[in-house]
């Protein structure tokens, strides 16, 4: 079990469309402690997902720096970033993005194909991850044989199977009903509290946001305000 802190300093991200500059993040700075569960909120176009992608090394900032644990992402090549993601970051997406022709266990196993480990060890890790998300009895089911909530659980298992330092979740409950959303959020809480994972979650939903220890509000690419959740005090980093 490991966790990493995240430090974004004066991050600026500008997109270009038809020679027009579109600033999405405008000198944003943010610090997230190791083992903290932070929620990013804000209206559409405020830069939430862009920040998530930058912290996940899927994109590079136009200026500024991002450090995750001991890694300064802005100094890494795309190849290095890809290799880093495979070991240190777990992604959870709104639409799950499971491979429909693979079973739940095989979907979870996918990131492990990048690791040198025996098939027995892979199977053990997959079984553990599926057990954590409560799907130990659904290993051989394909995505079309699972409910939306179960699919998202498989996606979470896929995100944690490599034991990453950071989990980045982009609207993980955006496509789920209220009851299933609560179950998924409880699972994220578990990963944070029991497994000490640093979690950064993007959401529009205030109820989902209430599961975080801290809620950061973005507005037009800048940090507008942030709130601590008294119901979920921050834990000490390991």
């Amino acid at each position: 079990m490991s966790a990493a802190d995240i430090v974004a300093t004066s991050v600026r991200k500008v997109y270009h469309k038809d020679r027009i500059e579109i600033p999405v993040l405008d000198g944003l700075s943010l610090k997230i402690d190791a083992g903290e569960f932070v929620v990013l909120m804000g209206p559409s176009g405020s830069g939430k997902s862009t920040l998530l992608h930058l912290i996940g090394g899927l994109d590079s900032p136009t200026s500024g720096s991002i450090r995750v644990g001991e890694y300064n992402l802005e100094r890494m090549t795309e190849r290095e970033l890809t290799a880093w993601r495979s070991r240190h970051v777990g992604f959870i997406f709104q639409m799950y993005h499971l491979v429909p022709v693979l079973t739940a266990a095989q979907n979870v196993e996918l990131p492990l194909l990048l690791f040198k480990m025996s098939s027995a060890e892979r199977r053990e890790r997959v079984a553990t991850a599926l057990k954590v998300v409560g799907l130990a009895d659904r290993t051989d089911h394909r995505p079309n044989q699972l409910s939306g909530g179960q699919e998202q659980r498989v996606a979470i298992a896929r995100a944690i199977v490599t034991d990453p330092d950071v989990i980045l979740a982009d609207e993980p409950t955006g496509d789920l009903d209220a009851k299933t959303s609560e179950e998924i959020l409880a699972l994220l809480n578990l990963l944070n509290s029991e497994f000490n994972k640093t979690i950064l979650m993007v959401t529009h939903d205030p109820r989902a946001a209430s599961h975080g220890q801290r809620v950061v509000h973005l507005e037009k690419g800048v940090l507008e305000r942030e709130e601590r959740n008294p119901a979920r005090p921050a834990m000490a980093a390991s």
Partner: protein
Amino acid sequence: MTIAYVMMQNLRRNRTRTALTIIAFALPMAIFVAAISLVVALIEINAISARELRLGVHHKTTLVNPLPEGTRRKIEALDPGGKRLTAVCGMRWFGGKIPNESGTIQSLAADADTFPRVYSDAELTPAEIEAWNRDRAAAVVGAGVAETYGSKYSGWKPGGRVVLKSTVPPYLELEFHIVKVMQAKGQANVFYFRRDYLTESFKTAGIDSPDCNIFWVKCNDAASLAALQREIDQTFANSPNETKSEDENTFRAGFTQALGNLPGLMRAMAIVVVVIIALVAGNTMMMSFRERTRELAVFKAIGFQSWRIFFVVLTESLLLALLGALIGIVPTTLFLLSFPIRRMGYLPISALTVSPWAVVISVVIALIVGFAAGLWPAYQALRLKTVDALRRVG
């Protein structure tokens, strides 16, 4: 689980489309391998013919116009010492068929004394030559003919007796005694018998017709063949029976071209087929890639390097091509080996056995097409920007 397993599973994603794409590869490949086999067989037969150094001398107007029997003596007189030509064998078309059967057998009456020397590729043993010389009704048949009719009728083996009825006037029906079944590839569909037997049978029917349709001149070397070709035609120039001399390849090519330049058509068809399957496969791979853009982006997000995604997409295309090629080639090969096309009209082909080269060429072409079809989608996957593929407003 391995990446290879994931690729194989991807092919099952849209089974109908995968099946149709594989069929789109398989059918042309089946035709392709058969076409190449035909071309290879013709090339092989032509090479054999060239080695035999035979010159065919027939009437300048058409093969149907007969040449007098004396033509042979005049040709032999061009090389009295026998330094340039081995022997001359006159032949007359019989066009026999088995009574009550529809197919005509390429049957020819040949000069008994010179046939074994001119047709050394018939590989008659001394005992068989002795039988040929002794028995006026002797016949030498190709393996293709013997096999085709041997499965239905008795007698189509050495020592057997068969009856053929001519399809040309006066429609003689003759009995023959088979002394040899020739295994030579270029002689598979031919039935030779003695011309003196035919001439005598004509006389019995009240017809005096010792003429020949063609004289085959066996030469000692290629230079002699070229020289004799000119000299023979010069000898008969401005006579009532002007000749046209051709080497065996050219003579046979005349029959092949009567079918419309078969090798050329085969090649053209092969090119069209390759282009069509490249377009079909390319379209399929592009559709498959578009459907999976976000999924491939997720692969990149969880740590798969771009080159690996490129490899996956390209290999899937190659797998499709290979599967299609195998499904097309293997049954075709088995079919041709199990049920050979024994008779190809007047083409000197006994059986369209699939040459290993035809298989290798077909598989290589399928892989090239698969590579070409998968290259662009794979490149798109390589260049895929993860954030763009995953982007939502936010």
